[in-house]
């Protein structure tokens, strides 16, 4: 098991956004988290990545406890994420955005910076290489020198994924990667995610676009009012009456988009 | 005991002045997200205008205060139109520097027009009276009364009227405010006018117990910044409570801790509070 979550709970004042959730994420799979708005999905991700401290419960990652680890350390451990609203270094170019993602794997200090040591140079080169590799991987090489704010939403989403991948993650958390992009591009995105998994990265994603989820996920976790109400393969989830009632609604939503 | 009362009363007097200045500052801060250092200059100009109108035109104190409030409100609107509205709202630093430029200018302007010497404002309320066993000048009671009155009016305006709420709304999301049909320029001008008017009122109230001179606003404005940070930036109740807390703690600190270090109190208080609670005492944003 890559990630084991036990009794995870998060309260904001009186509101329990995540309530006693148990879950596991298996290496090399795609796990999807779905649920109505406000179900606590994003909060669930915030907890794993260390942005929020859980009220209760524990998170084990590759056998070690990361329940209270701050976000920059979880990233160093190999958990990377994207945000629900695309979050990038708006003012920088695409490549500059992505290459800083590899900083976590470098060691150059102020001393290296001042004396421009070999280490600094090597690591700089490594970062560039990594960034180019990742941009190539997500298909954005041609935009490398454009400022981020000048590219489209969908390109920004892919940049965000490239940035997350530049940290060399083992586990990638994607919060609604397909929101705001059209069906055509959603299909491309799905194949990109598959490609990421083929490259050995475990993926966990939140999404409202059911066709995509159903075709992509190996395992689905359904949250409602902070609690896990179901879990299983897409086939099981699709036919789970409770999920249909709480979330999916009519058949049609699942089939088309 | 009586002596303690006297000191608390002194604190409340000066706290009233702080609160009025901080209120205007916090309103502008909410809209512009900029520490408007020129606000101290508005305070200073307000005092001079009242003084000039009183002495040159021979009008009554209250009428002079009214005229001064209107004129400073107008001056504040002018700074908004000519300078602040032309700067990028998302970039606070240039606005801050522009504010400092305005401050330099207004101070030099006051120097040119009114001279660099200290001046005294004499009101009809100079006599000392006995009040709850304390000797106080009537002017000091008036400061407290008038400040409370202005605060109440402001509170009602911001919470009970849509025009007032539009200031609050704009402080939270400019584009959002546009989308519901709020006229951004009008709100910005209105905010500046209110802030300027409050500063002028505060200065005109405080000047008779103090002196009028070109740099009189500088220290007050620094303390007002401390207050709005303590009170949560953009928070109206925060500015009021913060102003009184500061006034009283300065007065009591001077008495029971050290007179010499009483002016440190504001800053020590701020540093201590932010060290413990980095987001200030009140955290919700601009609210009525």
């Amino acid at each position, binding site marked *: 098991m890559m990630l084991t979550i036990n009794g995870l709970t998060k309260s904001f004042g009186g509101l329990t956004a995540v309530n006693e959730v148990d879950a596991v994420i298996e290496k090399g799979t795609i796990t999807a988290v779905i649920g109505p708005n406000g179900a606590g999905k994003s909060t669930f991700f915030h907890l794993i990545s260390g942005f929020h401290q859980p009220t209760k419960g524990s998170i084990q990652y590759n056998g070690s406890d990361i329940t209270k680890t701050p976000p920059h350390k979880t990233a160093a451990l190999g958990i990377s994420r994207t945000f629900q609203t695309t979050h990038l270094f708006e003012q920088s170019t695409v490549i500059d955005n992505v290459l800083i993602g590899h900083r976590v794997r470098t060691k150059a200090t102020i001393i290296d910076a001042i004396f421009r040591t070999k280490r600094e140079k090597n690591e700089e080169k490594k970062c560039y290489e990594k960034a180019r590799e990742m941009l190539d991987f997500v298909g954005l090489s041609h935009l490398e020198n454009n400022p981020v704010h*000048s590219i489209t939403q969908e390109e920004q989403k892919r940049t965000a994924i490239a940035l997350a991948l530049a940290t060399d993650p083992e586990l990638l958390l994607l919060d609604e990667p397909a929101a705001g992009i059209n069906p*055509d591009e959603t299909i491309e995105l799905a194949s990109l995610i598959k490609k990421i998994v083929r490259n050995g990265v475990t993926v966990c994603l939140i999404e409202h676009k059911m066709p995509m989820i159903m075709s992509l996920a190996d395992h689905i976790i359904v949250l409602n009012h902070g609690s896990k109400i179901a879990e299983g393969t897409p086939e099981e989830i699709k036919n789970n009456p409770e999920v249909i009632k709480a979330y999916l609604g009519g058949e049609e*939503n699942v089939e088309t988009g | 005991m009586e002596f303690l009362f006297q000191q608390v009363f002194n604190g409340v007097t000066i706290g009233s002045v702080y609160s009025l200045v901080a209120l205007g500052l916090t309103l502008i801060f909410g809209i512009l997200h900029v520490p408007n250092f020129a606000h101290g200059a508005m305070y200073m100009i307000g005092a001079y205008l009242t003084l000039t109108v009183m002495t040159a035109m021979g009008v009554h104190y209250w009428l002079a205060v009214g005229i001064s409030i209107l004129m400073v409100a107008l001056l504040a609107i002018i700074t908004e139109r000519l300078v602040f509205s032309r700067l990028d709202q998302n970039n606070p630093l240039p606005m801050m520097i522009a504010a400092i430029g305005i401050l330099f200018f207004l101070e030099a302007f006051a120097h040119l027009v009114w001279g660099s010497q200290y001046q005294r404002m004499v009101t009809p309320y100079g006599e000392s009276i006995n009040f709850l066993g304390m000797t106080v000048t009537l002017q000091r009671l008036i400061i407290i009364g008038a400040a409370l009155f202005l605060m109440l009016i402001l509170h009602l305006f911001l919470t009970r009227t849509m025009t007032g709420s539009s200031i609050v*709304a704009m402080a*939270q999301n400019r584009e959002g405010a*546009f989308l519901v049909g*709020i006229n951004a320029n009008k709100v910005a001008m209105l905010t500046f006018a209110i802030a300027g008017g409050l500063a002028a009122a505060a200065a005109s109230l405080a000047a008779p117990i103090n002196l009028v001179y070109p740099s009189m606003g500088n220290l007050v404005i620094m303390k007002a910044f401390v207050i709005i940070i303590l009170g949560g930036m953009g928070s109206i109740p925060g500015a009021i409570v913060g102003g009184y807390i500061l006034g009283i703690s300065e007065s009591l600190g001077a008495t029971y801790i050290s007179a010499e270090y009483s002016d440190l109190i504001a800053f020590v208080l701020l540093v201590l509070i932010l060290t413990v609670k980095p987001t200030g005492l009140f955290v*919700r*944003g601009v609210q009525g």
Partner: protein
Amino acid sequence: MLKLDNVSVSYGSFKALENVSLYAEQGELVVLLGSNGAGKSTLFKAVSGLVKVQEGSMEAAGTSILGKPPSFMVKKGIVQCAEGRMLFPAMTVLENLKMGSYVHRRDKKVQEEQLRNVYDLFPILQEKRKDPAGSLSGGQQQMVAIGRALMAKPSLLLLDEPSLGLAPLIVEQMFETISEINKTGVTVLLAEQNAHAALKISNRGYVLENGSVVMEGTQKELMNNEDIRKAYIGA
């Protein structure tokens, strides 16, 4: 109701809209389709007065609205529910909604009536009315945004990707709601990625590509167009 003629908008030297002409009749529901960056939001912003139109003319209900500020547009009944929501995060849900009827601030009856409609539409908002809007989940905030736009009692409602980030169940309801709002006589201009659902409730539609209108037609025409099916509706 709304008529745009050869409208162009640029950001700096980049042309986001080029000679766009379109119209919407009173009571119509018109869909705007287009991939990311096609210029849909820019078009909406232009109509709302949030960006400057460099060329062309814009008319609403017979009068020119070119170069008018956003507040003017809202007064005219042109209300937008924007992408990115633009809520007042520290205000409560109720306060946000009330601000929505800013232009009707002197008319308590309209306010109350609209508020009831919004609560009927999104009961969760009534439950959360005392919470700061900023603490709501993404989808709930979207509801507040739509609700706030409705509070202005629009005659022309511009909806910029209202289904963004909403759960399927809610999306379904929301399209029904939009349809209902439309049926009460409100003209609706709807930009959507979710082309199928949008077209289903629409009268007509336009397709935008790279800042220009590349296709327009009735609901049927567009639904049956192979290219559109492929590009926007998916298999």
